């Protein structure tokens, strides 16, 4: 029996394309640093993402959803687990520890 894979591949391409387009459209825009005088708007002063937050997104959220908080008593244990699981560097681990225990 010959398997007909074309419809599935086509579906996959369409699905991926639509998601890629959707994510491009909804990506967070950088704050506008040059206010347009002809159309005055409230400029949202977004704080730049700090190193810990960025590292958390890049290393932890890459595989799994961030847990909704946990006891600070285990923050170092979590990071030591992730150091092996996600091959964190010592510098990143220290930054993440500061992020988890501000």
């Amino acid at each position: 029996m010959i398997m007909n894979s074309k419809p599935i591949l086509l579906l996959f391409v369409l699905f991926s394309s639509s998601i890629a387009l959707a994510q491009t459209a909804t990506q967070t825009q950088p704050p506008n640093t040059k206010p347009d005088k002809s159309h005055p708007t409230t400029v949202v002063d977004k704080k730049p993402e700090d190193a810990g937050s960025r590292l958390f997104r890049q290393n932890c959220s890459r595989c799994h959803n961030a847990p909704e908080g946990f006891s600070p008593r285990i923050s170092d244990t979590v990071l030591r687990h992730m150091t092996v699981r996600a091959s964190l560097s010592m510098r990143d681990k220290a930054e993440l520890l500061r992020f988890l225990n501000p």
Partner: protein
Amino acid sequence: MDMPGFHLQFRLFTIARSLRLSILTLVAFTFVHSMAAQNTPLLSGGIGFFSATTAGQTTYLPIFEPLLAAPIGPRLFIESRAVLLESFTPNGDGLPGYNHSHFIGLTYLQGDYTLSPHITVVGGSYLIPFNTYNDRLSPIWIGNFQRGPLIASLGTESTGTGTGGMLSGSAISRSKYSLSYNAYFSSLVNNSYFQAKRSAGGRVSLFVPNHGLEVGLSYNRLLQGVRENFYGAHVWWEPANSGFQLRSEFARGHHAQGYWIETAYRTQAFGGFDSIVGRLEPVFRMQQTFRRDNVVSDGLPPANTQIADFGLDYNLPHNTRILTSYSREFATTGNYNIWQTGIVYRFLTPAWKGK
């Protein structure tokens, strides 16, 4: 009592006793060290209830995957994951009712010793780092689908675990890229708790954070019986602040090869990721396997197979996820539908109450 039942009960009793002893030993070793803040051993894991209807037959699977992690001093770290499940499958031959069986086992039990900022020595029973699914996506609280990919057994010696030693770490870490590595050797172990084959291999991954891009190569060589090589490659793309994920793997063994590509998306357009709509996560996975010869020794289907998985997950508050999916499997042995639903709760807590 019949003998198989007696043996099973005796085995469960032995495992339970071993686990109790291990936990007590860990508690004794770590209690003093953990009095300092942030170092308390943790209990984590997932509790789930899954159902799957394959070709009209529905199975139910309550499952518990606990994870224990305990630091011992500044350099040594012990971690282990286990699985306890009960599987309910319908009686065949038109008979009413369900048959059930249970399984308890250690997934891995390893010690990690931080030798230097770039080298961690791992010893014990560890998850084989071949591609990404086995050691990064297999926990039930992480995977977007109930079922793992078909090629998960390629390069992981079917058991998924090696028993021996491994070096791993971050070789280079810069703001624009990082390079991580794993290199391992596993010896042959026939013990029923830590079954492993004699093998060696490694993985190298390059991560470019600004583009959310990760690419990696894996290699595994079986060093017993017929020596076989396994090659793997993975590509992940997760653009920042987009909610979009693309993960893919390719694996090639001596007798078969295959790939999977998975996409997932969460929108921020309707109030962010934590809004009712933002918690929805449509997922899609395409996978194909191809036999290279007629020797079926690697866990892949005996015939060329392709599966399209369409899923819709919902990320509830309090670390709970609902996973649903419809899959259509195409193979020369027959085509059929697979419907899956499940719920998983992930917990993460200190191993004991503190001050």
